[in-house]
């Protein structure tokens, strides 16, 4: 509350860090409230779901056993955040805990240590942690703390902030199992736990597993067969070699990186404008395929633009930073946006490379990690010096890099030329016509001689949507006419909406139309065919049009058309007795309607609320125009007045008015002017279509950076200089103080975090969970590594090998640990339900994007084409339209675009692709996947067109090449999907189902044909439809098996 009043209601609550308020401790942890906490509590330390490696008897490790207890229970009030520190006591540093006056800890003497006394106190005022904090230490935890103090209270630094030291390979008993050094660490732990590793997976399982992991797609039956048949000792290595050479490797690895980089094809937020970041996405794919070393990969993406003689590719790489959302909502404050963007950029780099949660330091010093608010803004300063000002919602906000094709470039040049020509033509014509003005002036009062006057050009409004307030059925035709039928209520109001390709609308026309279904052919639905339009209200882009009546071709006495725009329900336009014919009323807009070219969102409300029952219009059409409204009227009186003045006596205003009036009557000039407008629009459109990828650039003069109070953009406090967090190693003395310096610092071999965080994320790629489960948080509150030595060994190995990503991946997939079978024994499940000890192979559902790629690959539909513009495959209709009120339509692609890999699917940020589930939302950086298991997923893979079509194509594939026997065909389908032969029991289930399906479809051939029509790929018409439909059912069954969507 205090804070709120301080910031006058503008603070942004970006962080839920627990902290004091009103001098009370509120918060937080209820152990019981947190999923896995019971296991943790039993283990005595924050080791997540890693089975206990108890310190109960063995030596105590400060970082592993003690620091997590202090962090969880004490740091909140006695940690790094100075502002909320209690009793001036800090327990996150050695100096603090052992301070000279009133030390909390007396080494060797737990009984004399204030900390233990307070923990054991029965006094609710004294006891620590305070009851109000909802934190409590368990008895074993307290014992552990006591023993640590009695043993001398050895202090240490948080493990992740110390540089990794390459450990010796641990000795193991079962040396025969080892394939590479990774295994020594895994096995050593298993042996300590008295567990045996699982047997190796079958060759079928293994090739399927490694092919998914390295390429995101399944192996072909031929690949499986070749591997099974290859008895050579290095058969597996050969497969791995082949997979590393596949271009699909880069695509697979890119997908996770796109999640981390919050890549999308639109800005997010209102308007959700498109952007062209796919050239960067293709850069990522190339980088992986070319095995770009991770240090280059990092430096080019964070700061490629700052490299000496930066290439186009290096500049493109920096688009990584520009993938954040852009808020173009009306009324947004640009400076606020800009700060949001810089924060997002800083935090993304911190999460991806440092694995620390910088976010909470926006507002205050970190509660647990040694990171201050000042550190945050110093880090932020690296990204604060770019030209982006935060204004607008343009998805091509400079600096950008143009990716137009030569054809596009020449097209724009051509259009520019055409625009110039059109302008010249117009100007010439205007000159000629002006010469004849005096002649026109003479003629206007008498017979017109200057050619036919220009005419107003009306465009019919074709409705997008029609509503009736009282239940009338409204149906539109393609020509824009609207016909009422069904219920005929006493009163009604209609709403017509339309997105019209026109801006600067000057006038509207309502045309009432006769129809044979009405009395006297209408146009009204009353008992005589009349109607009363009590009110016509028009809005353009949400703004009401201020209307004036120009004319009505007929008005019933007492029911003038002006009554339809006077705001009174008692008056209105009616047409008795002129029934059965067309009538028109024209309304001029006092100011132009719709100023956002190229189109205007129009809504018309036609009210029929008179006391005359059912005087509701039954058939009508609406029109709009952007022609000069002067054309609507006979010559204005003012012009007549001007004409009556002698030419040399007219003032400038009068001259101009007259000249404008004259010019506007000329058809040829109107056409020439229109031509200029059109040429301009075409040129703008072409420029708009040209891909412009947003990249990074430094301002020549650095922008000052300030600490922002509570993270509020308009509350700057002390000025800070660019720099890295004080608790991490400093930047090299000669490093440039900019993003390039930052990137090089991240990749310095002595950096404690970068290599660990990266190898951990890649471990997660192959095992589903990192060695540190909290891949996004290596801080004090993050999970401790399950295998700390292995993590450090991999990190140092990664650095030693020159940040060779493929080598790291090879190391992991070549290990015996990776190659184990994934069966779970009851004992193992009891001991290690989450498989953190890796006594078995990883088994988990494929990510949804991979499930889709799998189905396309199995069915033979997958199109292997790398990169390019994002594609729009099948999606249930109306998703985008519903999310954007019809402003953005989903124009589904066809042919090969339907079958491209998932990473090429167009990602609209406000409503992501519907066929994916559990995926990162691509709104902010995400480095850790979540897998869930819900009925909505089942509905997707059972019913989505993509999957039904894949089943049909797979069915066709086995019918064409699986031989004539049903059994063989079914077996083939099963084998394609799982890489293994079905068991007898499985065969019998599938064959039984096949018989039922076949019988059903033979008796219902039209049903079969309906099923086979799903999806746009052509089917082999020579195949028997009933049979094909039955196989389609079988293939859908197979594609939905747990095994088919799981990495075994």
């Amino acid at each position, binding site marked *: 509350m205090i804070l709120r009043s301080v910031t006058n209601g503008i603070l942004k609550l970006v962080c839920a860090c627990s902290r004091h308020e009103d001098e009370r401790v509120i918060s937080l942890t209820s152990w019981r409230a947190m999923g896995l906490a019971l296991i943790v509590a039993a283990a005595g330390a924050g080791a997540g779901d890693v089975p206990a490696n108890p310190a109960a008897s063995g030596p105590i490790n400060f970082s592993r056993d003690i620091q997590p207890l202090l962090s969880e229970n004490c740091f909140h009030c006695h940690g790094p955040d100075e502002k909320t520190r209690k009793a001036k006591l800090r327990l996150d540093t050695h100096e603090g805990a052992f301070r000279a006056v009133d030390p909390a800890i007396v080494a060797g003497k737990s009984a004399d240590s204030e900390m233990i006394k307070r923990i054991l106190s029965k006094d609710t005022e004294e006891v620590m942690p305070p009851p109000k904090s909802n934190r409590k230490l368990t008895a074993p935890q307290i014992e552990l703390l006591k023993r640590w103090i009695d043993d001398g209270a050895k202090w240490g630094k948080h493990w992740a902030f110390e540089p990794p030291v390459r450990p010796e390979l641990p000795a193991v008993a079962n040396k025969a199992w080892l394939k590479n050094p990774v295994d020594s660490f895994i096995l050593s732990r298993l042996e300590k736990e008295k567990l045996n590793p699982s047997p190796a997976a079958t060759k079928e399982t293994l090739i399927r597993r490694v092919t998914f992991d390295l390429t995101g797609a399944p192996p072909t039956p031929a690949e499986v067969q070749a591997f099974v048949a290859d008895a050579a000792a290095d058969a597996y290595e050969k497969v791995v070699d082949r997979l590393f050479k596949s271009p699909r490797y880069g695509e697979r690895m890119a997908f996770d990186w796109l999640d981390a980089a919050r890549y999308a094809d639109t800005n997010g937020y209102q308007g959700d404008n498109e952007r062209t970041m796919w050239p960067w996405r293709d850069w990522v794919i190339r980088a992986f395929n070319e095995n770009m070393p991770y240090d280059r990969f990092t430096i080019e993406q964070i700061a490629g633009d700052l490299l000496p003689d930066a290439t186009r590719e290096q500049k493109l790489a920096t688009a990584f930073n520009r993938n954040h959302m852009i808020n173009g909502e*009306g009324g947004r404050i640009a400076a606020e946006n800009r700060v949001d963007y810089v924060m997002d950029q800083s935090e993304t780099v911190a999460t991806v490379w440092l694995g620390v*949660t910088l976010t909470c330091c926006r507002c205050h010093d970190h509660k647990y990690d040694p990171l201050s608010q000042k550190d945050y803004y110093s880090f932020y300063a690296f990204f604060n010096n770019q030209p982006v000002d935060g204004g607008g919602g343009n998805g091509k906000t400079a600096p950008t890099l143009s990716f137009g094709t030569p054809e596009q470039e020449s097209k724009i040049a051509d259009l520019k030329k055409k625009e110039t020509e059109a302008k010249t033509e117009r100007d010439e014509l205007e000159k000629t016509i002006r010469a004849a003005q005096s002649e026109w002036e003479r003629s206007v009062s008498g017979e017109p001689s200057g050619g036919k006057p220009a005419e107003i050009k009306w465009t019919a409004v074709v409705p997008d949507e029609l509503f009736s307030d009282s239940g009338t059925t409204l149906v539109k035709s393609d020509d824009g006419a609207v016909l009422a039928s069904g219920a005929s209520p006493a009163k009604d109001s209609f709403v017509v*909406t339309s997105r019209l390709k026109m801006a600067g609308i000057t006038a509207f026309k309502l045309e009432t139309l006769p129809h044979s279904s009405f009395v006297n052919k209408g146009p009204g639905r009353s008992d005589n065919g009349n109607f009363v339009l009590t009110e016509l209200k028009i809005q353009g882009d*949400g703004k009401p049009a201020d209307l004036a009546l120009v004319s009505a071709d007929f008005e019933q006495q007492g029911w003038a058309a002006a009554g339809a725009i006077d705001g009174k329900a008692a008056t209105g336009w009616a047409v008795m007795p002129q029934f059965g014919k067309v009538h028109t009323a024209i309304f001029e807009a006092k100011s132009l309607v719709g100023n956002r070219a190229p189109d205007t969102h129009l809504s018309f409300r036609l009210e029929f609320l008179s006391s005359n029952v059912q005087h509701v219009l039954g058939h009508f059409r609406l029109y709009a125009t952007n022609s000069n409204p002067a054309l609507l009227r006979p010559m204005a009186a003012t012009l007549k007045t001007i004409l009556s003045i002698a030419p040399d006596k007219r003032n400038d205003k009068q001259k101009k008015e007259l000249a404008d009036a004259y010019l506007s009557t000329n058809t040829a000039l109107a056409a020439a002017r229109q031509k200029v407008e059109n040429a301009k629009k075409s040129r703008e459109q072409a420029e708009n279509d040209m891909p412009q990828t947003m990249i990074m650039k430094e301002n020549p003069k650095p922008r000052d950076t300030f600490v922002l109070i509570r993270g509020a953009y308009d509350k700057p406090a002390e000025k800070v200089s660019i720099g890295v967090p004080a608790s991490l190693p400093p930047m090299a003395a000669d490093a440039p103080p900019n993003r390039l310096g930052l990137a090089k610092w991240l990749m310095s071999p002595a950096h404690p975090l970068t290599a660990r965080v990266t190898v951990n994320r890649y471990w997660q790629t192959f095992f589903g969970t990192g060695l540190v489960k909290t891949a996004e948080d290596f801080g004090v509150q993050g999970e401790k590594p399950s295998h700390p030595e292995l993590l450090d060994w991999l990190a140092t190995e990664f650095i030693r090998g020159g940040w060779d990503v493929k080598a790291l991946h090879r190391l992991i997939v070549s290990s015996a640990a990776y190659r184990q079978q994934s069966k779970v024994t009851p004992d193992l499940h009891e001991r290690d339900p989450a498989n953190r000890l890796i006594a078995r192979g990883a088994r988990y559902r494929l990510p949804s994007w991979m499930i889709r790629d799998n189905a396309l690959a199995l069915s033979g539909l997958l199109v292997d084409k790398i990169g390019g513009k994002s594609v729009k495959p099948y999606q249930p209709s109306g998703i985008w339209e519903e999310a954007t009120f019809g402003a953005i339509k989903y124009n589904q692609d066809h042919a090969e675009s339907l079958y491209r890999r998932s990473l090429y699917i167009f990602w609209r940020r406000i409503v992501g692709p519907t066929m994916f589930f559990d995926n990162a939302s691509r709104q902010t950086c995400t480095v850790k996947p979540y897998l869930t298991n819900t009925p909505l997923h089942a509905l997707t893979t059972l019913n989505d067109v993509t999957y039904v079509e894949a089943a049909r194509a797979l069915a066709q594939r086995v019918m064409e090449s699986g031989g004539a026997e049903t059994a063989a065909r079914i077996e083939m389908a099963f084998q394609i999907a799982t890489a293994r032969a079905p068991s007898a029991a499985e065969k019998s289930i599938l064959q039984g189902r096949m018989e039922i399906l076949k019988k059903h479809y033979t008796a219902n051939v039209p049903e079969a044909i309906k099923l086979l029509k799903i999806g746009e790929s052509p089917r082999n018409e020579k195949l028997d439809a009933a049979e094909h439909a039955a196989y389609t*059912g079988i293939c859908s069954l197979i594609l939905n098996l747990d095994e088919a969507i799981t990495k075994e």
Partner: protein
Amino acid sequence: MDPLQQHQAQMTRRAFFGKSALGIGSAALASLLNGRACGDEKPGTRMGGLSDLPHFAPKAKRVIYLLQNGAPSHVDLFDYKPKLKEWHGKEIPAEIRKGKRLSTMTSGQSAKPVLGEITTFAQHGKSGAWVSDFLPRTAEIADELCFIKSMHTEAVNHAPAITFFLTGGEIPGRPSMGAWLTYGLGTDSQNLPSYVVMTSRDKEASCGQIFYDFYWGSGFLQSKFQGVKFRGSGDPVLYLSNPDGLSREMRRGILDDITKMNEIKLKEFGDPEIATRISQYEMAYRMQASVPELTDFSKEPASVLEMYGPDVKRQGSYAYNCLMARRLAERGVKFIQLMHAGWDQHRNLNSQLKIQCKDTDAPSAALVKDLKQRGLLEDTLVIWGGEFGRTPFLQGKIEETAQWGRDHHPYAFTHWLAGGGIKPGISYGESDEFGHDAVVNKVHVHDWQATILHLLGIDHERLTYKFQGRNFRLTDVHGHVVKPVLA
């Protein structure tokens, strides 16, 4: 014990796996919702959720949140300020404005003349609540409602403000309230998701706000807790219908075999995830029947349909969604989030406000009445309100009557609440005499959230989730339960 027996035993224990279809279904949902079921499930009893929740006996079992997106004008509808008429056209006093932050749509406008309310107010019911004549049906139920006239928030733009109400933070990325509740309280529904979202908008589409899917996102909670958006056209749930040419009967057979084959796999591999998968497929099948039944209004009495107004039969309308909300509430859905856009009257207050009111007034009131007549109101909390209010001064020019408007205004606005443990027929809190600032008994968004959680039996300080090393909660580090509004 072989792995299958082991796991079957385990699953029986954890109610993963009943033998009856019902057992499978409830297991499915438990898993959908939490992955941790708790014991022998009976229809209508809770599945999933955290074992220590609720923290105390709840007053409300479910919530229907009628979010009026775009921000209704409090000074024209509920917060009657005679001063506005008096000052109409005169510059709002600086000591009232206090130079507070505005959206850029009026921050640059040199004159800020007071705009008198464009409606007529009268007092209604025994409680004498002031309600505008634009809301006659709401006025009729005034004695059921608790008006909070001292709401205030921090954001001045729609998306951040809505995100703030729904997630406790302005920037997307935190779990929405419905996700928190599903995570914490599990579900009472056998056949439907626990958290359902429906959207609608004014017929004119006059304001164009977008319904971002992070409005019902699960943030850092697992994605199974996110709201299920029922669509306004076609299948209410994505991919619900079987493909053309595949009958429900054929589907049943295929699913039976998927189950059989997955059971073989389970026997061999022992991975409990397979058992969960089996139950999810079963649940999907059940949803294919339960959702069409849910959306079938044919058995609704004519009197009920009439109460919700003529739009009730149009899928995707506010009226339709209100009736759906009642049907969802009856079926045990815990958090029903309706979002209706169309209140953003920057330039069309004179024409659009009345239309908006007409479209939403009857359905909102009908929902409360309908819940009451079915005995559901006592444990269903209904909330009506926007993401902020609107300026008591004019956006636009005083002479351009047709284009009068009011800009975004976070410093005071009105919500009403009804049912589920709320004291009916009261008005709580006050704004100043211009309706500019909440001044008496101010209720901040976090207080509002704390109060809702309280009604559901949750201590808002104790429903937390650890992410990135910190314990997050809906109310951030703020929020006090507004006790005077509790029954």
